[in-house]
């Protein structure tokens, strides 16, 4: 490749994807779900780029937008030096060989009425690459490569276990030997023991074929294990991007800190000592996301600046340029989130949070806000109880 950033396989700039919400009347204002709202990232060749976030954070939408399963609302996607964000589905077809997906639900992503051989043979059939005996041979090669018995060519997906089905999905994605595979929660639906097998398979294939992965998951320990770089997503925006080790040792964004504190530790003593940060309230509605930093209604460190100003993704507290966070009040190393209390009124936090809390809860929060002025500890326990 002659492009200057030869190293970068995928570059996403300011990607926006809104979904229209079905309105009940003709005269209502059309509303949109802000599923992905201004995401920029770049993925280097041969790396595994992890994306973590809660349910509804937009990580799957981001993955599918990159794979151009959706028409994106705004922004640009540059894949292998080619701008693809405005490509029609027809123009995307040859590129489909380069960008593949592995899906979360190993049952749902395999057509229950079709035989495994024809499912894995789909890539060849669609692109007219191999027919008849040649296709069968290549399908059986793929099955063997991912650890399936090639004899099971004629079986239906229902005849396989969850892990085997995910291997079928992997074989299908591997058929073209793509440059990029977007793994959308590839192991979330599997047993822990099977998760390890599938992750090891993905790692082996990466080494063998020089694949690049985007690995979307909500399980931080899995992401830490497989990823070189990790991006944390919250309500359609990235809050922090860092090399995996940096992120898991010095998280800058309070949201990352809260996520990390929820990861189960194998050592019970350590687990006992650690203070878990339980976030208050639900994820606000993505239809009317909060102003400023989207995390502020739930952030223990929230300050007025978080409500008024949108934070920028940049290195904080002298971090390396590869470690960026979007936060006005980043966490220092060794800082304990549990020691902090928001310096904005709880009632304001609730209102800004899209009004998701019901009246009673809002009242409690107002009480909490009043208590905050006098006794911070009481306010915190009040917050915990919610």
């Amino acid at each position, binding site marked *: 490749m002659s492009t200057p950033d030869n190293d970068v396989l995928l570059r996403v700039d300011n990607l926006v994807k809104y979904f229209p919400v079905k309105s009940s009347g003709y005269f209502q204002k059309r509303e949109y779900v802000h599923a992905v709202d201004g995401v920029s990232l770049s993925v280097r060749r041969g790396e595994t780029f992890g994306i973590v976030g809660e349910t509804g954070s937009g990580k799957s939408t981001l993955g599918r937008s990159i794979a151009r399963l959706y028409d994106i609302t705004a922004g640009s996607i540059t894949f292998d030096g080619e701008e693809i964000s405005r490509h029609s589905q027809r123009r995307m077809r040859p590129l489909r060989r380069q960008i593949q997906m592995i899906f979360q639900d190993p049952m749902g992503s*395999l*057509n229950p009425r079709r035989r495994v051989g024809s499912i894995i043979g789909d890539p060849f059939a669609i692109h007219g690459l191999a027919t008849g005996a040649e296709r069968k041979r290549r399908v059986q090669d793929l099955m063997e490569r991912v650890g399936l018995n090639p004899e099971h060519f004629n079986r239906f997906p*229902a005849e396989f276990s969850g892990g085997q089905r995910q291997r079928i999905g992997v074989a*299908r994605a591997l058929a073209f030997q793509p440059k990029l595979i977007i793994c959308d929660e590839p192991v979330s639906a599997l047993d822990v023991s099977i998760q390890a097998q599938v992750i090891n398979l993905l790692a082996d294939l990466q080494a063998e074929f020089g694949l690049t992965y985007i690995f979307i998951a909500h399980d931080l320990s899995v992401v830490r294990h497989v990823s070189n770089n990790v991006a944390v997503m919250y309500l359609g925006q990235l809050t922090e991007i860092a090399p995996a080790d940096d992120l898991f040792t010095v998280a800058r964004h309070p949201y990352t800190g809260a996520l990390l504190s929820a990861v189960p530790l194998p050592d019970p003593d350590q687990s006992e000592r650690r203070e878990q940060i339980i976030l208050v309230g639900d994820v606000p509605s993505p239809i009317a996301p909060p102003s400023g930093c989207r995390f502020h209604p739930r952030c223990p460190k929230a300050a007025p600046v978080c409500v008024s100003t949108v934070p920028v993704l940049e290195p904080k507290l002298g971090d390396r340029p590869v470690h960026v966070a979007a936060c006005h009040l980043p966490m220092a190393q060794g800082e304990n989130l549990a020691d902090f209390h928001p310096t904005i009124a709880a009632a304001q936090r609730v209102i800004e949070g899209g009004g998701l809390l019901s009246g009673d809860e809002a009242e409690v929060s107002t009480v909490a806000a009043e208590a905050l002025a006098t006794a911070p500890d009481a306010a915190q326990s009040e917050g915990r109880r919610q």
Partner: protein
Amino acid sequence: MSSSPEVRGRHAGKPAVTSGSAAGTATMELPPAAKKIEGRSPWRLALERLRKDRAAKVAAGTITVIVLCALLAPLIASWIGHGPNQQFIDTGLDAEGNPLAPSGTFFFGTDSNGRDLFIRVLYGARISLVVGVLATLISVALGTFFGLVAGYLGGVVDSLIARLIDVVLSIPFLVIAISIAYISHPGFWLVVFVVGVLAFTYPARIVRGQVISLKEKEYVEAARALGAGPMRIMFIDLLPNVVAQVIVYGSLLIPLAIVSEASLSFLGVGIPPPTADWGAMINDASGYYQAGFWWYLLFPALALLITTLAFNILGDSVRDAMDPRGAGIYE
């Protein structure tokens, strides 16, 4: 024809799992067989349920007899020596020129033209079955196609097809069928076409609804990620998943088509005379049965009743058997 695969399937399925049926073969339950059942569960379970359903067995038996009658009609006719349109002016009518009651010569009696009613009822089965099956195939094919296209593509295409279905459904069947038959020449293919095309709305709606929910499945997304176009997704990925519903609905459309054909022929816009047809025969009899010629009306009407009833019962059983909530197999 949609009924015969079911009937054949029952026998084809026999070697794998044998229930205590009339065949009385030993029950064999091998581990590999158990595995196979898991994989083909929807179809296999449906067949199992169908096999246990006594009503379905009776209906299928009745339909088999009717099909045999239709197939063997010429043979029986030549064996008895009465053609379907052969008039027995001397032996088939009484002195006043009225139909004869059932007897050893004419099992079902004769009609007003001195023709053998028994042979004509047998021949009538051919028209009913062929029209019923062909018309159902047409409506199922059209309905599946339009349903797939409307459901998958959505938007303007969906709106157009949905409005078309509404329009067709809003015009009474007989009014539109009689109008079409009136402006063109009534005949076999016209009947097949009219009955088949006008009934496409029912399977179209079913398939459309199914496809709208199926297209959100991840495997459709996976197909798109592989670069599959809309045609491939509709006909390779989605079609196999709606086949079960289509078969169920098709089996219920057959009796509807048979009755529609008989109605058209009864009204004189269906199969033109002298072809033996149940609807036309019932119409012929309408001027006679009150004068005491009961057999003239009874036998064609009974044939029509038994045929549609058998298809309806079988269709219901097929629907029950394919309903995943059905309990039959676990009893």
